[in-house]
């Protein structure tokens, strides 16, 4: 499966988020063609429709499309919500798992 991990350097959650993604792929015994993209300008963010850092797209689909729609395109840190409603800068495990399992089942 193809996974894009997009991030901006200003947001410190990209490193633990990437680690989380890699750990979950390993846990699920899944191989992925992982492309890591550092977004460095507003223009690049607009071109990539980048809704903040970090953003994970599995087979071209954001792991949280509803959440993506509520975040402005740009170099900001992205806001995620956990299943119990808390705000977090980290992509929640359950959303990442759902996305990679869905892609693996295809």
């Amino acid at each position: 499966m193809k996974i894009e991990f997009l991030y901006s350097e200003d947001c410190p959650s990209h490193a633990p988020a990437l680690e989380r993604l890699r750990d979950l792929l390993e846990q699920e015994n899944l191989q992925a063609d992982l492309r890591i993209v550092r977004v460095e300008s507003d223009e690049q963010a607009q071109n990539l429709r980048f809704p903040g850092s970090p953003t994970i797209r599995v087979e071209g689909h954001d792991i949280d499309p509803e959440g993506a729609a509520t975040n402005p395109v740009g170099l900001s840190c992205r806001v995620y919500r956990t299943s119990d409603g808390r705000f977090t800068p980290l992509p929640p495990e359950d959303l990442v798992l759902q996305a990679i399992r869905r892609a693996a089942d295809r």
Partner: protein
Amino acid sequence: MALKIGADAPAFELKNVDGNTVSLESLKDGASALAIVFSCNHCPYVLAWEDRLIQIARDYAGKGVRFALINANDPVKYPADSFPEMQSRARTKSYPFPYLFDETQEVARAYGAERTPEVFLFDASGRLVYHGAPDDNYDDPSAVKKHYLREALDAVLAGGTPPVAETPPVGCTIKWK
């Protein structure tokens, strides 16, 4: 570079969300400790820590501890951090503290703040005793092991020194003009 531990709090007068001007002197006057937190509306780290900060402010208010949040972000590039949005946020969350707008970003520069949230805790004499993150886990409140700000407050109120004086602030960068 951020203020050093032991430094005096730089003075300011900033507009509060209620339209009044709030000065550092008025915040310090009679306070047993003063927490200045650089914050904003949009940052997920602020959102993750927000309820905890509100609770800390409420828990320590009866002991003479005062809090003030300061938003220094550029509202032109980040409209979610505009003054009207600050007013809305303070109303929605019933902020128990002033939420001040550092429109020129001079106060953020004077304190050497770089992130949101970033805590500067001053003792009764106005000297910096703790600087950094509110605790050691932005992601999961139930997994916090080190309550840096609470522990610093307990120490200061007991006339002592915080067990941890400084931690790297964790959060979004302040959005400079």
